[in-house]
């Protein structure tokens, strides 16, 4: 079912790993110990760069949840109930969404086991991914929102509930493009004419590129990120890079939040650093909008808000952004105190982005 089955356990393995986790708690009780669950601390200060994989992963700092405290006991209890639910789901080969899990907990007989917020259940699933070393997708848990869309010269085969489908991401799809499924590991790449992957932050810009036929003209796979990209999107990007050997570029707005979008594509996100090896594409390159573009193209801008400045300053301390390129760009931006959207390029005409900006920049980056 997947192309790298050596790292992805099948359903039964996933189930066993969950039950092993429960067995750990069982053994702690049986030995008269206090059940505890140890997971890496998931904060910016506890991510380190993995030289081998060239991605950011969690460091050595752990936090321990112990049944000694009421809140710790409740967390472990919820984990046990969730493990029970997931193992049944896997046994029956069904799947559910994160939101469904949240509502489903309402049906659990013990009030203390129920989730209070959606965040709580989402976090717990991530905790379980970390301690069991099994990905959410392999628990058959999917996020509510579906993955983003791809447009470009790529032929693939997707396993669907209704059988395998062969799809060409230009010829077989509408203007919207090919919808990335929740688990992109169900996709098999068959053939492609693509020269590179172009990830685009905003829908408006993606539509502009498609309308102007940029994917056709430059053999680009245009991937719509739709804000902070979903796991499925990042996974697909990584597979396109690793398996088809395509260079990956990221085109976003010129503000601190967009740099984080690039960061999560390239370096991995803090929340899912345990999956960085699986999701991050360290070779991804940033196209823009760069602060230097704001200056060079005299783009229409907004002033930086206080939260923008804070975010930029926090990025200067973020280990993922500690490169010469980023330090220079962020300091420049703080200096000019301005930010610009992708669509600001339209101030120089609707075709400026496809005829001038991108070709020049991509050429400069050695991609074209």
């Amino acid at each position: 079912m997947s192309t790298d089955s050596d790292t992805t356990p099948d359903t039964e393995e996933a189930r066993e790993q969950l039950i092993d986790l429960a067995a750990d708690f069982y053994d702690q009780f049986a030995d008269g110990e206090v059940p505890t669950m140890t997971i890496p601390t998931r904060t910016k200060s506890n991510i380190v760069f993995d030289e081998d994989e060239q991605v950011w992963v969690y460091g050595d700092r752990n936090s321990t949840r112990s049944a000694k405290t009421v809140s710790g006991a409740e967390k472990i209890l919820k984990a046990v109930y969730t493990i029970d639910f997931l193992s049944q789901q896997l046994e029956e080969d069904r799947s559910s969404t994160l939101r469904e899990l949240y509502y489903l907990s309402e049906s659990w007989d013990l009030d203390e086991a129920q989730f209070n917020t959606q965040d709580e259940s989402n976090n717990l699933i991530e905790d379980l991914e970390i301690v069991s070393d099994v990905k959410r997708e392999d628990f058959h848990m999917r996020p509510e929102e579906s993955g983003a869309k791809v447009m470009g010269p790529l032929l693939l085969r997707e396993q669907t509930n209704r059988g395998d489908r062969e799809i060409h991401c230009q010829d077989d799809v509408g203007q919207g493009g090919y919808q990335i499924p929740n688990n992109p590991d169900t996709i098999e790449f068959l053939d492609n004419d693509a020269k590179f992957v172009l990830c685009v932050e905003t829908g408006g810009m993606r539509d502009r590129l498609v309308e102007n036929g940029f994917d056709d003209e430059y053999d680009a796979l245009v991937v719509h990120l739709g804000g902070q990209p979903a796991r499925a999107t990042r996974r697909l990007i990584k597979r396109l890079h690793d398996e088809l050997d395509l260079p990956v570029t990221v085109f976003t707005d010129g503000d601190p939040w967009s740099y984080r979008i690039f960061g999560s594509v390239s370096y991995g996100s803090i929340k899912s650093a345990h999956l960085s090896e699986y999701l991050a594409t360290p070779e991804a390159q940033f196209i823009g909008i760069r602060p230097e573009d704001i200056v060079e193209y005299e783009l229409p801008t907004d002033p930086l808000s206080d939260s923008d400045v804070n975010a930029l300053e926090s990025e200067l301390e973020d280990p993922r952004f500690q490169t010469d390129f980023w330090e220079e760009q962020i300091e420049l931006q703080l200096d000019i105190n301005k930010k610009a959207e992708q669509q600001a390029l339209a101030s120089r005409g609707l075709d400026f982005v496809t005829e001038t900006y991108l070709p020049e920049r991509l050429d400069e980056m050695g991609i074209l």
Partner: protein
Amino acid sequence: MTSYQSRLGEGEGIAEELAESQRAISIAEFFEKNKHMLGFDSEARALVTAVKEAVDNALDACEEAGILPDIYVEIQESGDYYKLVVEDNGPGITKEQAPKIFGKLLYGSRFHAREQNRGQQGIGISAAVLYSQLTSGKPAKITSRPKGQDEAQYFELIVDTDTNEPEISVDETTTWERPHGTRIELEMEANMRARSTLRDYIQDTAVVNPHARIEFDEPGLDESLKFERAERAELPDETEEIRPHPHGVELGTLLKMLEATDSYSVSGFMQEEFTRVGGKTADSVIANFNDRHYGRGMAWQPPKVNEDADIEAAVEDAVANKGAETTATFAAAVCDAIHDCDRVAYHEVEAIVDDAAEDAEADGDTTFGSTVRENAVDAAWGAVTADLTGDLYALVDDVTTKRKDDAAIEGLASRLADKFADDGRHRLTRDELRGYIDRAADMTEEQDDATYGETARENVLEALWTAAEGVPEEPPKVADIADDRDTASELLSAMRETDIIAPPTDCLSPISAELVEEGLRKEFDADFYAASTRDASVHGGDPFIVEAGIAYGGELESEGAVDVMRFANRVPLVYQRGACATTDVVKSIRWRNYNLDQPGGSGIPKGPAVIMVHVASTNVPFTSESKDAIANVPEMEDEIELAIREAARELKSYLNKRRSMQQRREKQDKLATILPEMAEKLTEVTDNDELHIDDSLARIMNNVLVEREIEDDTVRVRIENNDDTNADVELTDIVTAEPQDTNGATVVEMDGEWFVKWSPTVGAGETAVLEYSVTDEAEFTVSVDGIEEEKLTVNA
């Protein structure tokens, strides 16, 4: 403590005088006019006041006779009236005593007795008797059985309202089941609108008199309320009546005392009539009095040595016809004596001249008559005071700032010197001296462009006053002072100014913290009680002691403000709560610091609590004659606050502990639900055998865990303390075979069972192990003491 029995024969006092002055009008009219002051201003309040007076009287009678009081109070409906019945188990009264005690209004008032007594609080039982007679027309019915008599006496008593003379109208022998005591029945116009006040009054009385047993019945009760005596409660210590303290009398009182005393001299009067005054203190008072009455004599430095001749020559010149040698010797003696003084005042010069004259008379045949002596004194004094400016310059310069220039000091000194020139003896009071300084300073300011501010003037005054000397005159006789209000006022100021040790406190009988707590405990069903008694303190000349108590939780009303109970000399204060210093103090304390709810951070706190404050004093300062509220005297407020805080600190630590125990219990309850469920779920998910989670629970609950381990012949009993405090464990292991090598544990054999006793102290987070061996097959039963059950898990 005096009761009404022993008060017979007294009768002096302001109250008596008050009644005297009212003779002109009928006693009924007097009562009518003053009933607000007497506490009979409404029918509801009249009943409360009557009960209060009767109960106070009954308690006093019992205590005086050394009998633990057993008081019965009943209110009955009686046609249009209410009938009040109060019985005590006191010593009873005779026919002769009855009219005076119950009938004579304002008889033997205790308003001014320097003693802690209940009588301070009211006008007396007689007012209640009079009120009942005036409203119902019925006599007071008194039954009395003195101790040891077989039969009781029954009197009916009527007050002749024209003459204020009580009369016994009925006098017969009767039977009464009490072995001794007094019963009084009063019928009066009244209503029960103040029912809750009445019940509170009785309950409060029971709280503050834990040595008394009180029963109360009224028409609204299904059965009578019984307030039992606290178990350990004994009679309050007898109090001594003390003489007044000089700091605690008013001018009116002082004048009366001056008139009444047998003493002739002020010194004798002070020592006889006041507490804490001995010869030395009396002298200090007199010195202060003289300063006010006569003033001080300004003393001057004698002229310098090189001007010696002046005094000697002046004296020689003044003495005529005494022979050259005698005169020279006399003059030299006077001169030398004056030069021996650092400073000399007129009266000292007089004394020196007298001494020298007597020496001269003893040596020769010459007589130094009064004229010669006066001339000599004037001459010597003239020489001493010839130049005052230099002396004054030094005095002024010493106490004024360095920035004052010479001209200003010189100016003031010379002007002051001029003032003294007016009066030959240089004798003046402090006020007069201040007048000199003010005028001289004003002039200097005006003419020399200098400034003499208030501080500078005060400093100069102090320096000059210190340099002056008290005069040796005898103070006026007591009789003269008594006739002269101004002189008496000077004496009063002198008394107040003199440092005198605080009055003795054995005249006070506090309830004691222990019994305050006991009193609260028996009347309030609470979870926690605390009480405090302060050491005696003094305000004015009256010693006082403040006691406070707090009850919290249990059945106490948890809604609304806490109940503040106020007491003065063991009598509950019922009315004017808002005007009372006690209430003010309670409001001013930040109760949140003591874990009580206090909306807005000030005011009466909220919650299930009762705060009581008892002030015992020989003279409780009340805000008004109705004696319902304690006045805001700072010394007393401070003590009230400290007493309350002392008790409140205990409350705080109790509440803290309770909170942490509650949190612990909540945590345990929560974990006790979660963990078994977790274990069950884990068993289900992992498809394993049922889990036993006792050990884990013990560790999680911070419990003390006792476990047994048997390995071949070796038995190990392990005590694991998971708590964060030391655990003192007393463990007994009962073994059915003889244990060996018990490592210090004691073993006692009894009927074929061996009791292995082990009492280790296990530190927080530590484990202690007892190891012994048993060779035979054995059974073990372990029992553990010293650890609260909820903190103990035995798994052995």
